[in-house]
C-alpha cells in the first residue's frame, strides 16, 4: 500500500522562477526504504522538504500533488499539516551540531513533540523519552535527559535527534544526509539504529543521500535526481548494477576503485622520515575556562619514500590532520624528529624543505584568498623560484592551469568558479613549483561524487607526471584504496597499524582497522569487481 505519493512535483525560487525541482514523481510504500540520490543542486532536499510542507524560505511549490497517508497535502489547513508533522512524518537533519536547540535541554526537546501530539502525563512522557534514549544506545539516559545538546558529540546528538523523532512513531521518516557529518564508524552505528527503529515501528524511510554505499546497504529502491530532474528510478540492484542512464552510470563509475598495481617500493633513504613525533596542544584559554591540554599526536614513526603515496586514515580526533600539519612544520612539535633527505628539519625553518613541500587543503572555499585572481594564486609560489623571468613565470602558470583543466581562466576570481574548479586551483598552486613532498588533507571530501572522481584522477596523473611523494590524509577509505601505495591507520594520536595497501585492506590485523573496514559499505559487482563507496 502506498504511504506517500508525489506526482509531478515542481519547486521554484519565488524571486526569479528558477526551477529547483522539475516534474518529479515517486512513491513510498508502507515499510519501504527509498533512497533519493543526487549531487549538490539536484533538488533532493527541496523535494523532501516539500513533503513536510517546510520548504526553505525563498522556495515555493509551483505544481504537483503530494498525497501522504491518503491525505492530499494541498487540501489541508496549516493546523492539520502541523498535526501530521511528527506522528505521520518525521525528519532527521544533516547537521547534528545545529539541528538541536542549544538553549533547551535534551529532555524538554524530546518531550515537546509528545506533549503536542499525545495526551500523556509528565511522568509517562519522561518514561517514554528515557526508554527511547536507551533504545538508541545512550549510556546514561537519566543524565542525558537533563543535559544540554552542546555536551554531546556529533554522533550522540544524531542519536538524540533520531530518538526524538522516532518517539512519535512516524509512518514516514525523512532522513536528509543524516550521517554525512559523522565519521565512518559512527555513521554505521547511527544508520543501523535508524533502520532497526524503523523496522520496529513499521516506519517507511526516505533517505536522502549522495552516498551510493549507503544506498546499497540500506535501501530497497532508489531514485536518482540531477539538477531537479528525475534521471532514473528502480530497485537498488538495478540502479547500482545495471544502470540505464548515462548519468547513473557515471555516478556508479565515479566510485573509487582499487588501482591495478602499486608503485614499486623504493629502497634506500626515505625522502621524509619522522621519528617519535609528538604534538601537544596546551589548554586553550576559552572565554570562561581553560581547556585541559591534549596530545594530538603521540609518538609517531613514519617513512615516506620519494614518489610514493602514503595514506593516513582514522576517525575524527585521531590526530591525522595534526600529523600532516606538523610534518610541514606549520605547527610546533613537542618531541621527536623530522628528517628531510636525511637532514634534521625539526627545529629549523629549513628553506629548502619549505620550498620543496606543499599542502592541499580540504576546503577549496577558504584556502584561496578571495581577493586574488586565479592566475595570481597559481603564480604566487613562483615568487620564490630564483631567476625566473616574468614571461617564463606566466608561461608556467598558463601551462599549469591547462594541466588541471582550467586553461584560460587565469583572470577569473575564485568565487566565480565551482568547488571542483577551486580545488583544481589549489592543486595547481601546490604543484606549480614541482615540490618533492605534498600533504593532501582530505582533498576531495568537500566535493560532489563525480567531481571527487575527476579530481582524484587528476591528482594521480599529476603525481605520476611530477613524481612527488604524498601524504594523503583521509577518512574516506574508498579514496584511499584508489590512490594509496601504503596505508597508515591512526587512532588517538598513535599509529595502530601500517602496511601496504593490499595488506591493510585484505588482511587487516588491528581491531580498529577491521572496524573501520567493516563500517565502510562495499558494493559487490557480482564478483567482477568491488568498489568501496565513499564514506
Amino acid at each position, binding site marked *: 500500500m502506498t504511504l506517500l505519493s508525489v506526482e509531478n512535483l515542481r519547486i521554484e525560487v519565488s524571486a526569479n522562477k528558477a526551477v529547483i525541482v522539475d516534474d518529479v514523481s515517486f512513491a513510498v510504500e508502507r515499510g519501504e526504504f527509498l533512497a533519493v540520490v543526487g549531487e549538490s543542486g539536484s533538488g533532493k532536499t527541496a523535494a523532501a522538504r516539500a513533503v513536510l510542507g517546510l520548504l526553505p524560505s525563498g522556495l515555493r511549490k509551483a505544481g504537483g500533488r503530494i498525497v501522504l497517508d491518503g491525505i492530499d497535502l494541498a487540501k489541508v489547513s496549516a493546523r492539520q499539516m502541523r498535526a501530521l*508533522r511528527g506522528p505521520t512524518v518525521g525528519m532527521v537533519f544533516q547537521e547534528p551540531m545545529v539541528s538541536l536547540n542549544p538553549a533547551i535541554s535534551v529532555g524538554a526537546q524530546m518531550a515537546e513533540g509528545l506533549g503536542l501530539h499525545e495526551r500523556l502525563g509528565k511522568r509517562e512522557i519522561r518514561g517514554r523519552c528515557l526508554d527511547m534514549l536507551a533504545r538508541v544506545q545512550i549510556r546514561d539516559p537519566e543524565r542525558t535527559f537533563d543535559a544540554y545538546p552542546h555536551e554531546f558529540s556529533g554522533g550522540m546528538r544524531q542519536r538524540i535527534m533520531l530518538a526524538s523523532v522516532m518517539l512519535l512513531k512516524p509512518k514516514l521518516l525523512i532522513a536528509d544526509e543524516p550521517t554525512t557529518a559523522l565519521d565512518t564508524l559512527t555513521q554505521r552505528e547511527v544508520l543501523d539504529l535508524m533502520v532497526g527503529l524503523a523496522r520496529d515501528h513499521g516506519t517507511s524511510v526516505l533517505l536522502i543521500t549522495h552516498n551510493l554505499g549507503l544506498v546499497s546497504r540500506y535501501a530497497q529502491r532508489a531514485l536518482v535526481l540531477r539538477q531537479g530532474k528525475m534521471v532514473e528510478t528502480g530497485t537498488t540492484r538495478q540502479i547500482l548494477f545495471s544502470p540505464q542512464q548515462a548519468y547513473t552510470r557515471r555516478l556508479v563509475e565515479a566510485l573509487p576503485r582499487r588501482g591495478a598495481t602499486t608503485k614499486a617500493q623504493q629502497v634506500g633513504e626515505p625522502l621524509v622520515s619522522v621519528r617519535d613525533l609528538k604534538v601537544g596542544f596546551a589548554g586553550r584559554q576559552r572565554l570562561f575556562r581553560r581547556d585541559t591540554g591534549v596530545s594530538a599526536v603521540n609518538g609517531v614513526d613514519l617513512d615516506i619514500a620519494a614518489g610514493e603515496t602514503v595514506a593516513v586514515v582514522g576517525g575524527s580526533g585521531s590526530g591525522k590532520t595534526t600529523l600532516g600539519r606538523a610534518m610541514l612544520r606549520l605547527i610546533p612539535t613537542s618531541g621527536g624528529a623530522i628528517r628531510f633527505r636525511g637532514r634534521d628539519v625539526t627545529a629549523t625553518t629549513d628553506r629548502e624543505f619549505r620550498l620543496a613541500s606543499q599542502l592541499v587543503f580540504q576546503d577549496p572555499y577558504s584556502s584561496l584568498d578571495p581577493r586574488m585572481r586565479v592566475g595570481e594564486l597559481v603564480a604566487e609560489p613562483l615568487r620564490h623560484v630564483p631567476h625566473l623571468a616574468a614571461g617564463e613565470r606566466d608561461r608556467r602558470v598558463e601551462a599549469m592551469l591547462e594541466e588541471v583543466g582550467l586553461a584560460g581562466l587565469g583572470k577569473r576570481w575564485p568565487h566565480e568558479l565551482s568547488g571542483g574548479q577551486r580545488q583544481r586551483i589549489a592543486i595547481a598552486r601546490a604543484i606549480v613549483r614541482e615540490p618533492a613532498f605534498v600533504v593532501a588533507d582530505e582533498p576531495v571530501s568537500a566535493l560532489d561524487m563525480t567531481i571527487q572522481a575527476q579530481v582524484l584522477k587528476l591528482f594521480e596523473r599529476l603525481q605520476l607526471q611530477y613524481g612527488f611523494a604524498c601524504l594523503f590524509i583521509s577518512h574516506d577509505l574508498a579514496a584511499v584504496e584508489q590512490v594509496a601505495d601504503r596505508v597508515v591507520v591512526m587512532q588517538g594520536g598513535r599509529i595502530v597499524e601500517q602496511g601496504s595497501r593490499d595488506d591493510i585492506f585484505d588482511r587487516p590485523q588491528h581491531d580498529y582497522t577491521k572496524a573501520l573496514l567493516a563500517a565502510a559499505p562495499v558494493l559487490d559487482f557480482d564478483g567482477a569487481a568491488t568498489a568501496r563507496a565513499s564514506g
Partner: protein
Amino acid sequence: MLGYLARRLLMTIPTLLLVAIGVFALVRLIPGDPVQVMLGDAADPAQAAQLRAQLGLDQPIPVQFMHWIAKLATGDFGHSITNNLAVLPLILERFQVSAVIVLVAVAAAACIAVPAGLVAAWKQNSLLDLSVVGGATLLLSIPSFWLGLLLLLLFGLKLKWLPVIGYVPFTENFWQAAAFIVLPIATLTMVEIGVLTRMARAASIEVLRLEYVTHARAKGVPEWRVLARHVLPNAFAPTWTLIGLVLGHLLGGIAVIETVFTLPGLGRLLVDSIFARDYPVVQGCLLFTAVIYVVVNLIVDLCYPLFDPRVTVA
C-alpha cells in the same frame, strides 16, 4: 561560580587602575596651574596656597597619586571647590536621578524592540518587516536631544500635558515626579529602540535559518511556540550583551538629555562642574561612571549563561 566572580573582579582591576591614572592625569594635563585655573584671576596667594595644600598639589606627583588612590579606596572622593560638599554623596544623590531614567528607558526599549525585531525577522522582507526596519533606522538617526526638544515642544508647550522644566524626587510626590521624568524616559526609549530592534532582528534572522527551527516545525510545533520557545531565547543572547553597551552609551549621553529637560542628574553635574572648573567633582563623576560601566558589563556577562547554557561560569 564564586571563583569565576573573583576572577572577573580581578580582571577589572587593571582596567580601573588605568582609568584612575587617566582621570588623575587629566587635571595635571590642563594647561597652566590648576589652582590658578580653578580660582580664576582674582586669586590671592594665600588662598592659592591653601587650595594647593588642600589638593595636595605641593607634593611630588607619585605621592599625590598614591594619596588620591588611598583616599578613593576609603570612599573619599574629595570635596567640591564651589560649595565644599563631599563629592561622593553629591554624585550618589545625582546618580539616582540618572539611574532611574536610564534603567526604565532600557527596560522599556528592550520590551518593545525584542518582540518587534523577532516578528520583523519572522516576516522577513514583508511590508511589516520593511516598516519595522525603516522605523528603527529612522529612530537611530534622530539625535536624542533634538527628539527631546520636539517632545517637549509638543507635550509640554503645545498640548501642555506635562510640565516642561523641573524635577521632584520620587520620595516627595510620586505622580509629580513621574510627570517630570516621563518625557526624558520616552526620549531615551525611542532612541534605543532603534539600536535594539535592528540587533534583535539580525539575531533572529540568524537563528531562524538554523535547522533546529525547522526541526521544531517538523515536530508539528505551532509557529507562535517556535518563535517564543526556540527562536527568542537564542536570539536574545546577543541582544543581551548589547544591552550592557547601550546602558553605558546612555550613561555617557545622559548629560544631553538632562540638559534638555533640566534634570539634576549625574551628567548635568559633570557638565556644570566642567564649566565651574570644579575638578574634584569632574574627576569623581568620570571615575564613578567608569566604575558603573564596568560593573554593568560584569553583571551582563554574569547573567549571560541564563540565556545560553553553552556558556557556563563554573
